[in-house]
C-alpha cells in the first residue's frame, strides 16, 4: 500500500511540472507589463525599466522559467507583486478558509445527495423519485449568487427586520454560523450530481442477483438497501464526491465574493485582475497539487470500500 502511494506521489511530479510550464507560459505571453502594474500608472518609464531588470523580466523566457523552477525546490514561489509578501505565505493564509468551506459544502452535498439518491432509486418512478430528481435539477440550475442572495435576504435581512437579530450573518468568516449559508449554497449545487450518480448506481446494484438472494432469504428491506446495496453502489458516488471536492476547492469564487470569505478563489481572481503573475502561478500550482491529492485519496478510499481493489494496490 505504501509503495503504491509513493508510486502515485512520484507520478504527480511530471504532471505538476507540466502545469507550471503552461501557467508560466500563459502569464508570460499575456500582454501587460507587471513592472508597470507594480509601480503604478504614473511611474516614469526609466523606473519601470529598472524594475523590469530587477524582476528579471528582461531575461529570455526559458531563463525565467528555469529560475521559477529552481525557486520551487526551495518552496520559494516568489513575492506577491501587490503586497510584497511571499506567495507561499499568501496562499497558506487563504487555504484554510477554502478547505473549511469546501469540506462543509461537500458534507452538505453528500448528505443531501445520498439520501435523495436512495429515496429516488428505491421508489423508482414514483412521486418521490420525480420529486428528488426535480430538486436535484433545481439545485444544479440555481445560480450560486442568486441562491446566496436569497438566503441572505431571508436569514439576514428579513430575519433581522422581523425578530430584531440576524440568524446567519450575511458575510464574513470565522464562526460556524458564518459557514452555514455558504456551505448550503455550494452544497446544493453539488448535491445534484451526487443524487443522480447515487440513484443510477443504486438502481444498477438493486437489480443484481445477490440483492434478490438477500431479499429471498428474508432480510428486511432496510438492511438490504443500506447494507448490501449501498456499500456496493458507493464506488461511483465516492469518485463523484471526490471530484466535486476538487472542484469546490478551486471554484467557489462567486460564493466567496458574495459572503466575503477570505478564500483562494477570491485571491485568484484578484491576482489575475492585477496581473500579479507570481501569485497566479502559485495558486494554480496549489490547485494542481490539491487536485492530484484528492484523486489519490479517492483511489485509496476505493480500497477501503472494496477489499478486492485493495489487493491490487501494491
Amino acid at each position, binding site marked *: 500500500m505504501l509503495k503504491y502511494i509513493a508510486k502515485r506521489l512520484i507520478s504527480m511530479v511530471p504532471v505538476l511540472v507540466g502545469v507550471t510550464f503552461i501557467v508560466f507560459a500563459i502569464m508570460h505571453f499575456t*500582454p501587460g507589463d507587471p513592472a508597470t502594474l507594480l509601480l503604478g500608472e504614473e511611474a516614469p518609464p526609466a523606473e519601470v525599466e529598472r524594475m523590469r531588470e530587477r524582476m528579471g523580466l528582461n531575461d529570455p523566457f526559458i531563463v525565467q522559467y528555469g529560475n521559477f523552477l529552481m525557486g520551487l525546490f526551495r518552496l520559494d514561489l516568489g513575492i506577491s507583486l501587490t*503586497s510584497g509578501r511571499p506567495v507561499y505565505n499568501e496562499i497558506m493564509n487563504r487555504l484554510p478558509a477554502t478547505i473549511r468551506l469546501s469540506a462543509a459544502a461537500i458534507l452538505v452535498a453528500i448528505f443531501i445527495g445520498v439520501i435523495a439518491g436512495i429515496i429516488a432509486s428505491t421508489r423508482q418512478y414514483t412521486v418521490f423519485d420525480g420529486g428528488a430528481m426535480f430538486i436535484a435539477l433545481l439545485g444544479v440550475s440555481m445560480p450560486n449568487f442568486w441562491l446566496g442572495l436569497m438566503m*441572505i435576504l431571508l436569514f439576514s435581512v428579513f430575519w433581522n427586520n422581523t425578530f430584531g437579530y440576524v*440568524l446567519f450573518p450575511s458575510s*464574513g468568516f470565522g464562526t460556524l454560523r458564518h459557514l452555514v449559508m455558504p456551505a448550503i449554497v455550494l452544497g446544493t449545487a453539488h448535491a445534484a450530481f451526487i443524487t443522480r450518480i447515487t440513484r443510477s448506481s443504486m438502481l444498477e446494484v438493486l437489480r443484481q442477483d445477490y440483492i434478490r438472494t438477500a431479499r429471498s432469504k428474508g432480510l428486511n428491506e*432496510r438492511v438490504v438497501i443500506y447494507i448490501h446495496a449501498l456499500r456496493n453502489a458507493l464506488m461511483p458516488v465516492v469518485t463523484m464526491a471526490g471530484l466535486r471536492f476538487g472542484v469546490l476547492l478551486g471554484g467557489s469564487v462567486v460564493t466567496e465574493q458574495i459572503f*466575503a470569505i477570505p478564500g483562494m478563489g477570491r485571491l485568484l481572481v484578484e491576482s489575475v485582475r492585477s496581473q500579479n503573475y507570481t501569485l497566479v502561478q502559485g495558486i494554480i500550482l496549489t490547485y494542481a497539487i490539491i487536485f492530484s491529492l484528492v484523486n489519490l485519496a479517492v483511489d485509496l478510499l476505493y480500497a477501503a470500500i472494496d477489499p478486492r481493489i485493495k489487493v491490487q494496490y501494491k
Partner: protein
Amino acid sequence: MKVSKKEITFRREVYISGLLMGNDRRVKIKGGNFMRKGSLTILTILLIVGVIFAAGVNSTDAQEPKRLIVANFADANSLDPQRVSDTASFWIQNQMYEGLVRRTPDMGVEPALAKDWEFIDDRTIEFYLREGVKFHNGDEFTAEDVLFSYQRLLDPDFGSPGASRLAMVDIDNVEIVDDYTIRIPTKEPFAAILTYLAHSASLIVSKSGVEEHGDAFGENPVGTGPFKLNNWRQGDEVVLDRFDDYWGGPAEVDQLIFRAIPEGTSRTIELETGGVHVSRGIERVDLDRVDNHRNLELHLYEALRINYMGFNHEAEPFNDVRVRQAIAYALDHSEIVQAVYGPLGGPATGYINSNIWAFNPDTYLYPRDIDKAKELMAEAGYADGFTTKIAINDDATRRALAEVVSYQLEQLNIQSSIEVYEWGAYLDMTGRGDHEIYMLAWLASTGDPHHAMHPLFHSSNKGSAGNRQFYDNPQVDELLEKGMVETDMDQRMAFYQEAQQIISEDVGWIPLADDREAVGVHVSVTNFVPCPSGYHMFHKVGLE
C-alpha cells in the same frame, strides 16, 4: 417488551453498519419505533431553538468595549504605506500612520507630525517637528524617522509604487538640523510640496520598527497614528486598537475594525442588519435603500476623480482639431451622466476635477450643438463620418460610458466599435499610442493642480507617463512649468486656469463626469466627516 428474532438480527446489522436512520417500514415495533422518532423530533426542535436563542442573545453589555466596524471594498494589500498605492490599503493606513502634514476634509493642509514649517528659500522647506510623539512600539518620533521614511520610499531597489509622489525631493541633501528640525530641499522650486507630503505615500514609518521587522513590516506596522494593529486576518478583517499614547489624545472608540467585503450589495446588507457601522462604496442600486432606511444616513460627497474620453492626437482623423471639436459639440453630457452615473457622478465641466482649487469653471466651450458639430465635420472633410474604435478596460461603468458615447457619435455618422482590454494590456496599448478613442479617469489624490494636469497634458509625459492622448502644445507646457515653480498661490491659479482654457480650445480630451462617492453610516455613529480623498478619519468618530 418482547423482541423478535428478526429484530435482533436487524439491530445487529444496524450496529455494524452504523448507517441506519429513521424508522423501518417492515418491522413495526410499537413503542420503540415511536421513541426513536419522537426523540429525533425533540432533538431537532431543541437544536433549532438553541440556534435561534444563541443568536438572539444581545451582547450589549455596558462593559463591552466600543467597536466601530467599517466595511471596506477590499482588504489592505499591505499595512506598509510604502509598499502599496491602492485606496483600500491607504484608508486603513491613514488611521495608523501620519505624515508631516495632512489633508483636511475641505482639502486644505494642516499640521500633523510637523507643528510648523517655513520656506527658507524657493527650494527648501524647514519643518519643526512635534516633540514627545510616540510610535506604537514606544519609541520616540524624531527627524531620523522622517529621513528614513523618505529614503525608503525613494530607494529604487525598494521599488515603492508611491515613489513618484516624492520624486521632486532632493533626498541626498535632506538635512537633519536637530532631532526636531529637518530641512527638505527639492530638485527644482516646487510650490505644491506640502500637498505631496500630505499624500499617503509620504506617511512616516518607524525606523526602528522597519529595522526590526524587515520585509515583514507590512504585517507588523509601526506608526504614530491614533490606532495600532491588534490582529490582521488577511482577506477578511484588520482589527485596530486605540493607541492610548497618541499625541492628539486617545480615539473615541476602543477598537476600529475594517472588514473586506468586495460585493457592493453585501456591504449594504451588512450595514442594514447592523453587521457594520460605516460602509464605503454604496452602489447606485442601493442608494435609495440606504437613504430611506430609518437607521442609516447616506453621505454623498465629491471625490477627486475626473472621467474623460481621450483621443490619440497623433492619429487620423483626431489630429484635426475640428474633428475633436465636432465630437465635443455632439456629446450630450447630462444624458451621459444620467445614464451611466446617476447620483454618483456630476457632469464634468473642465479639465480637472471641480474640487481642485485651481479649477476654472468657465473653460468648457462646447455646449451641445449638433449643427455646429456637423459643420465642423464637413469643414474637416468628414461630412460622411468615419469609422473608429473606442478602447476601454474591462469595467462595467466604462463599458456603459462607451456604449452611450458610441451611440451619440452616430449623429455625426461616426461608427465606432468598442474594444475591451484587460487593464495591463490597456495601459500598454494606450501608452504605445496604438489607440484612437479611449476612456480613462484621473485621480489627483494630492488635490493639487500640478498633479491634476502635468502628467496628462505636458508633452514630456507623452505615452505611459500619463499623456496618453499625445497632446503637445508648447504654450501649455510653459504654463504648467511656471505653475510648478511659482509659490504665489494667486499666480499659480492664473497659470493653471489659463492652461485649462487653452486645452479646452484644443480639445485636449473631453471631460465626461466627476466622480461622487457614497458612504453609508449608521445613526449610532457620531462625528463622521467624509473626506474627498476617500480616506475618512476615525480618530474623533464615536459610537453611541
